[in-house]
């Protein structure tokens, strides 16, 4: 109870911060002050959870039908995974991790090995008890090259040969070539669902999550029933969970408003006014630390020149980007990610919008008449790209926004885009870096490679001690801030909307407030 309470207090604080920023930059926002009001409404709903009912959650999965695979989730598969699978850890609302299936999980002193022990008496949906064999199977499956999971890269450091069962509930994980890997929790948490050895993603999709599968029609919906032996007592609340897939926001908003849905997960900011105006609905704005920005490709002219990168970062009018690109639902950023991370370097001053300096930098770099192509996929990212293109025009830079299909964007040319949008869901510094600009990053679109940064990053990976790691990260962030390839202009809020009958949904700093299916309940009476 006390834990819950403290979380709520924390949230309140962070929201005040978020709201303040929003107000500060809210001059251009048509709907300022909206977010606090909505969250206030949400805070008011603190009644006792009710059991039973069918909870209907509407998700947008683009056009992907997706699957149920725990380790290679595609499209809505990630969200469905929250219902089906439990992991060693789970996320705290402040984007830190806490133990879930595991009762103990610690790295050794240099983070070259982890020991993970699960709670006793855990069971899968089909009644089989969870053992170290299943733990081993799950990690091996995730990292199996034959499975080709896109997320295997995050835990690429794991040495598949050196996994070791310590006892029936304990597993030891070691890393390749004596590497160290401190952020195992953050990288394994999302896609490291624990599944039984007889698991099959199509014929036997069982896990230890709050709900077990009843039926799944790809691209349409999936239906789940309550898992009675879920490791959290008395959870989940609803008897049934239904995840309904939508292709576009308009029809889902209509379904929510028409009462055909209880929860709409991840609402488009443009719909906020409409949803907020509806007395039957609640809008939850989670001030996440998911960043949105642009990748300046260092491998391409003109961005190999640090002055051009600096000029671009100075040219971004972040307030306006937040106001227009995010419809005001977000906060500005300082070209660095993971501000919630305790190691974040708050000493670095917020980079201002400085047209004059940007111009002079461009002039020094000999790029007075610069033409750049910004390649993006259709979707929400386009707006920010358009706003940015408009902003840089003031410095005489022509940015041509080129929209390409998702398959082209992520196709063979994906490292060739001169300028492209980038974003990563809220993660700690190390995990975010592994997504973006770390030496072994799975997708380094900005082609940022810096010897000193690499050195610092490797040291940080091997440093479980917070204070010492903090020093390393601080210096690394100075480098990123000064000459990195990312232009991070903002952190976006995640908007969820739900019927007023839904409880257990509260804003948090993560992106998945509405995916906590073991917390959500429905006042179905």
């Amino acid at each position: 109870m006390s834990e819950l309470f403290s979380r709520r207090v924390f949230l309140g604080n962070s929201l005040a911060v978020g709201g303040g920023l929003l107000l500060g930059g809210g001059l251009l926002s048509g709907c300022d002050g909206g977010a606090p009001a909505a969250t206030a409404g949400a805070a008011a709903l603190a009644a006792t959870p009710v059991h039973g009912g069918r909870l209907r959650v509407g998700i947008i999965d683009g056009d992907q039908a997706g699957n149920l695979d725990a380790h290679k989730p595609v499209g809505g598969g990630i969200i469905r995974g929250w219902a089906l699978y439990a992991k060693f850890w789970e996320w705290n609302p402040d984007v830190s991790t806490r133990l879930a299936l595991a009762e103990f999980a610690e790295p050794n002193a240099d983070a070259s090995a982890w020991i993970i022990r699960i709670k006793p008496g855990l069971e899968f949906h089909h009644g089989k008890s969870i053992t170290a064999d299943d733990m081993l199977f799950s990690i091996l499956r995730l990292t199996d090259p034959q499975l080709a999971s896109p997320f295997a890269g995050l835990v690429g450091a794991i040495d598949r040969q050196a996994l070791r069962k310590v006892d029936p509930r304990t597993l030891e994980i070691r890393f390749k070539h004596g590497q160290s890997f401190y952020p195992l929790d953050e990288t394994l948490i999302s896609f490291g669902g624990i599944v039984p050895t007889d698991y099959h993603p199509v014929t036997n999709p069982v896990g230890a999550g709050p709900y077990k599968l009843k039926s799944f029609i790809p691209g349409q919906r999936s239906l789940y029933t309550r898992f009675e032996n879920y490791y959290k007592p008395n959870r989940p609340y609803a008897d049934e969970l239904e995840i309904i897939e939508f292709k576009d926001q308009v029809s889902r908003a209509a379904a929510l408003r028409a009462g055909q849905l209880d929860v709409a997960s991840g609402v488009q900011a443009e719909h906020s006014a409409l949803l907020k105006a509806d007395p039957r609905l609640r809008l939850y704005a989670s001030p996440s630390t998911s960043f949105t920005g642009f990748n300046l490709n260092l491998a391409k002219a003109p961005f190999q020149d640090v002055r051009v990168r600096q000029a671009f970062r100075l040219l971004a009018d972040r307030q306006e980007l937040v106001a227009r690109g995010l419809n005001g639902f977000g906060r500005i950023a300082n070209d660095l990610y993971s501000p919630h991370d305790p190691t974040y370097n708050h000493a670095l001053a917020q980079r201002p919008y400085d047209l004059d300096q940007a111009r002079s930098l461009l002039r020094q770099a000999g790029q007075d008449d610069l033409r750049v192509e910004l390649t993006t996929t259709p979707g929400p990212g386009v707006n920010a790209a358009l706003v940015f293109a408009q902003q840089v025009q003031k410095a005489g830079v022509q940015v041509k926004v080129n929209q390409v299909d998702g398959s082209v964007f992520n196709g063979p040319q994906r490292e060739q885009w001169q300028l492209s949008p980038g974003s990563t869901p809220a993660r700690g510094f190390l995990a975010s870096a592994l997504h973006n600009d770390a030496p072994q990053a799975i997708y380094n679109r900005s082609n940022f490679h810096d010897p000193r940064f690499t050195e610092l990053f490797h040291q940080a990976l091997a440093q479980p001690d917070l204070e010492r790691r903090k020093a390393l990260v601080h210096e690394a962030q100075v480098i990123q801030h000064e000459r990195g390839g990312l232009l991070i202009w903002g952190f976006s809020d995640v908007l969820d909307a739900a019927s007023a009958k839904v409880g257990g949904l509260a804003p948090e700093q993560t992106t998945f407030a509405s995916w906590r299916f073991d917390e959500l309940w429905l006042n179905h009476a």
Partner: protein
Amino acid sequence: MPDHAHRSPRTPAWLAWFIGRLGYGLLTAWVISLVVFIATQALPSDPARVILGPDAPLQSILTLQQQLGLDQPILVQYLRWMGAALRGDLGISLDSQVPVAQLLFGRLGHTLALLAGVLALVVPLALTLGVSLALRRDRPLDRWGLSALILLKATPSFLLAVGLVLLFSMPGMGWLPAVSILDPQLPLWRQLPSLVLPVVALSLSALPYLTRMVRASMIEALESDYVVAARLRGIPERLIVWRHTLPNALTPAIQGVALTLRTLVGGALLAEVIFSYPGIGTALNAAIQMRDLPMIQGVVLVITLAVVLINLLADLLTVLLTPKLRTARRVKMIRRNRRGIRPWWRRARSTPAQEATHD
């Protein structure tokens, strides 16, 4: 004088025509499947990358490509696909890893239900409207009706659909579901309310064409000599409209319905997306986005076969409903020019299909 020429043979003559027509249709479907297969496989897109997403390492992509057989020559891939398709196996969806046939089966049913609903609404409506407008030709009702129809025709169909969705998501409009999310647990006939709005939206866009077609052919039939003659014989007006005029006006209307269906098979896509209706239209749109090639090929094959079937049925109905064609000794649905003499450069060849203009 030439009475003896009309003894009906044992098997009706149109049967031979029908078989030929069937073969032609199947050939068409086959060619389309081949073209689409080659085009989709050859185009610069990499399903493996689309499936795995931006963060996939190269190794994973290469492995998946191999698993999908994307590294084989196109013709080998086609032959393999065709062979399997003939056995009813359309491959596995790249996206959801479920057999395409299984995915399509349910969705096809939904789309067919949607189309059936549209037909059930539009055909009687268009007939009634068309007939009543034709009977009131050039009177105010007719003129206003026509203007309204043109306006309806000019309005892009997706606007109608979006408008309906928004209207029914308003408070107090809950008596019809705004969005057609179907519960797979329940049979479709118990979820008919979900069909209403998409059917209405599609019907509205299909209505103008059909109504005007019925009206035009009704007017043509009403002005024909045989109607004047029937009228001057004292045949009651009711019989003139329903017995003398409508059957003859129906023949062009059948081709019109076929054309409407053909357009709807493709046009349902927009409505399906807007209403989140789980039909083959949404499946195709998603498959195209995802480069889910087996799914695209499967959907296209199904759509093509459907179109071929629709055309076939329409032609068959036309033959069966037109006594002159039904009883002919050789069915050639060819409209010669008035004197029956064909232009000088096209001698002794027959056109298989009737002319049906695009409108």
